[in-house]
Structure formats: C-alpha cells, structure tokens
C-alpha cells in the first residue's frame, strides 16, 4: 500500500518541542550561576515554579478534555522565566501562585500554546508585583562574593538593602550616580555580582544562552537588538539631556534588560511575525522601558514595557504586512 499525501514530502527537523527545549537549555547557564551565587533555595523556587506551571497546564488540559501537551517544554519555559523574575528570598508559594496565574489566566484560557496574547511569565510577574508589592520589590539577597548593590560594602553607607536600580530610583544623588557609572560597577553587572531577581544577574551568561538561540534561529536577534539597542540609545539621549544620571551602559546591563530583551521579548508567540513588526516591537519596547525607569512609578520597566508591546502585536502584524512579491 502506497502512502499518498500532499507535497512537500520532507520537512525540516525543527519541531515545537525542539525549539522550546532549546530555550530551556539556553537558560541553563544563568540558572546554574544563580544557584552558585544565591544558594540551593534557587533550585527549590525554580522547581516549584516549573512544577506549578506544568501542573496547572496538566490540570487545565485534563479538565477541558484536551490533548495533554505538557511535554512540549513551553510550560517549563514559563516556569523558569517566572522564577527568574522573582527574588531568591521569595516565599515558596510566590512562584507557585505566579506560574499558576501565568498558565491558567494568561495562557490556557486563550486556547493554550500559540494563542496567548501576553507573555505568560511576564504577566505572571506583573500579577505578583500588583498583588504582593512588598515581596516583589524588597526582600533581596546579596550574591555570594558580592554585594546587593554591586558596590563595595564600604562605598556608601546605609544603602545595603537596595539593588542598583532601586538606589537610582529612591536616591539619585551625584555620588551614587558616580559609583553606578564606575567600571567596577559595570563589571559587576556584566559578570553578575549584583543582587536582584534570580535570573537577571549575569549579563554575560544570558548573552551566551541567547547567542545559541540566535544561531539556531529559535529567537530573532532583531527583536533583541531593537530592544536593547533602543534602551541604549534612548537612555543615552536622556543622559545627554541630563534626565538620567547614569550612562547607557549601566541601563542595558542593570535589572532585567538583558533577560527581558533576550528571552522574553523574543518569545515567538507574543511577538510580531513580520520583520518590520519585530523591529518596531523591539525599539518601542526599549523606549517604554526607559520611560518607566526614568519617569515611572517603578524602578524597573522591562516587564511592563514588554507586556505593553505584547498588546500591540496583533495591531503591528496588521499594519506591517509585507510587500507581496510582484505586487
């Protein structure tokens, strides 16, 4: 018996699970490093987050009698990214609640993988920030062999409890700006000797993971370059105008710009499909991020900026349709 099927008769070896699990692999360097500097609690929080995400997905698919797709890796990514977005000192139930919200309300209600409008991990984080602001904004731990603010302990008194961005928000004095702009500080940020959320400390390791994805074409470098580049350029303009006391390099290395720009903005499902749309998405996201950092109510604007751009994706897809060959 011959099999009949329409052309094409060969397909590429790329599959949805393969893409998803590659993203998981790309996040591993940053994860291992986080365990190294923050201790085993990171493992607990991340595992709980992943389990909660996969569990929620399983429960939902079971309840709605759908195909169980938890092995495609997408829920694992949501779990890891959510854990990456909370403090290593968070109570154990925080990642559980965040992942459950992310999967139930942000992803599965909309029809599951491929249909969600918002990045589940980011919306989960926004949910946590809105619900338990004190747990999400304070509660930091200094990394092993480093300090919370990334500065030498004796440099500035009385600010041991703040991350660099919080410092910048609450106390933007000349001297603090100076120490934030120092090569020492930038190095600490790049390598990851600064306190902060689990996954956003080391710019270097995040870049390594992301370059693997760019190389495999599982993430679009245009979005990342657009996002991080526009944070750099726009904060540079504001620095020049005297609206922000810190240099652009500090802006792109601190907080979640690397994590967000490399891994969250490039989430395939919640970013535009056209090249033009992707550039707009990245650049506009970067600008919103800087706006929130400089004038907004929060010290960090990465997650909100990407969530806001997520909203615009269907619109961007519509207005940036490609020029059809020969039309």
């Amino acid at each position, binding site marked *: 018996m011959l099999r009949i099927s329409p052309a094409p008769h060969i397909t590429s070896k790329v599959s949805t699970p393969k893409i998803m699990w590659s993203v998981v692999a790309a996040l591993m360097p940053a994860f291992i490093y986080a365990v190294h500097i923050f201790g085993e609690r990171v493992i607990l929080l991340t595992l709980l987050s992943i389990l909660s995400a996969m569990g929620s997905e399983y429960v939902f698919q079971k309840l709605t009698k759908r195909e169980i797709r938890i092995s495609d890796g997408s829920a694992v990514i949501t779990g890891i990214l959510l854990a990456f977005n909370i403090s290593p000192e968070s109570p154990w139930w925080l990642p559980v609640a965040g992942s459950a919200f992310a999967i139930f309300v942000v992803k599965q209600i909309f029809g599951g993988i491929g249909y969600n409008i918002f990045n589940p991990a980011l919306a989960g984080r926004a*949910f946590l920030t*809105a*619900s*338990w602001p004190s747990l999400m904004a304070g509660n930091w731990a200094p990394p092993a062999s480093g300090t919370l603010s990334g500065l030498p302990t004796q440099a500035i008194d009385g600010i041991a409890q703040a991350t660099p961005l919080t410092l910048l928000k609450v106390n933007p004095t000349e001297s603090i700006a100076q120490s934030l702009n120092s090569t020492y500080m930038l190095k600490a940020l790049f390598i990851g000797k600064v306190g902060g959320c689990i996954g956003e400390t080391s710019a270097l390791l995040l870049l390594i993971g992301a370059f693997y994805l760019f190389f495999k074409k599982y993430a679009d470098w245009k979005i990342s370059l657009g996002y991080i580049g526009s944070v750099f350029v726009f904060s540079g303009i504001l620095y020049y105008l005297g609206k922000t006391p810190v240099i652009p390099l500090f802006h792109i290395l601190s907080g979640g710009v690397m994590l967000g720009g490399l891994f969250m903005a490039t989430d395939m499902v919640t970013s535009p499909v056209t090249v033009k749309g992707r550039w707009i998405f990245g650049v506009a996201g970067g600008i919103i991020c800087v706006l929130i950092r400089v004038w907004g109510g929060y010290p960090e604007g990465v997650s909100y900026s990407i969530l806001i751009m997520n909203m615009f994706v269907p619109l961007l897809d519509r207005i940036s349709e490609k020029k059809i060959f020969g039309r």
Partner: protein
Amino acid sequence: MGIAATFVFVLSNLFVSSLRKIIPANLRIPIFIIIIASFVTIIDYALKAYLPPLSVQLGVFVPLIVVNCGILGRAEGFAFKNPVHLSFMDGLGAGIGFTLVLFIMGTIREILGQGIWMSIPGIFDGFKILGASFTESSIILLILPPGGFLTIALLMGLFNYWRKK
C-alpha cells in the same frame, strides 16, 4: 451601589408604567431618561447627606446609574407595556439580580484582595474573614481595576458553564 441601583430600577419602572398611557411613543426615550435621572439625583443627594464616605467612594458612579443600559432596557422593554404592580416586581427582580452580582463580585474581591468583607468606609471596618497572616499577603491585584475585570470574566465563565449543564 446595588441597593441604589435597585431603588432606581424599582421606582423608574413604577413611574414609567404608571405614565405609560400618557407618554407619546416617539418621545419616550428622553422622558424615560428624565425620569431615571431624577431618581438618580435623589439617590445621589441622599447618599451625600447620610453616608458621605460611601458617596466619596462611589464617586462618579452614582450619577452614572442614569446611563446604566439595564435600567433603560427594563423601562423600555417591560414597564412601558405592563401594569404598575408587575412593573414594580420586575424592577425589584432586576435590581436584586444586579445587586446580587455586585455583591458576589464584591465579596470575592474583598475577601481575597483584602481579607475582609462588607466594609463600608467610615461606617464599618468589615469582618476579618481570613487571619492576619493572610491579610498581609492578600492578593492586592483583585482590588485593583484589572482584578475587577478578571472577577467578572471568571464569574461569567462559571455562569455559562452551569447554564450549559
């Protein structure tokens, strides 16, 4: 809020129905609106006089009962065509239904969002339903605007689900 709305529901239905014979059909909508608006004004001022804190909290929403589609809908759809006593019951029913929904939503959002229940600012602090440890870590999102949307959505989903069954 619910009670205020019920009040307007009932009274406007009552009025519309008793006046239904003398209202010319082509002018009925503006007249309905005037009737409803009058009652809303009465409520608004009553609240301001007797429960000023609540009035502040409800803010612009009280006068906006005027444009509550539901009330106009009942007036147009039911009261205009039916006798007084039926219209009274209809208005009461619609009002209670409306109140009930508001009440359930308020309950969910208050308990999960703040850990308290039935608080009316300046009058009653509310029952502390859940322990202090929870109150500290309650889901603040629910008392923010997005929480409101979310609660409605999930309630509607549940309602649809039960209705299907």
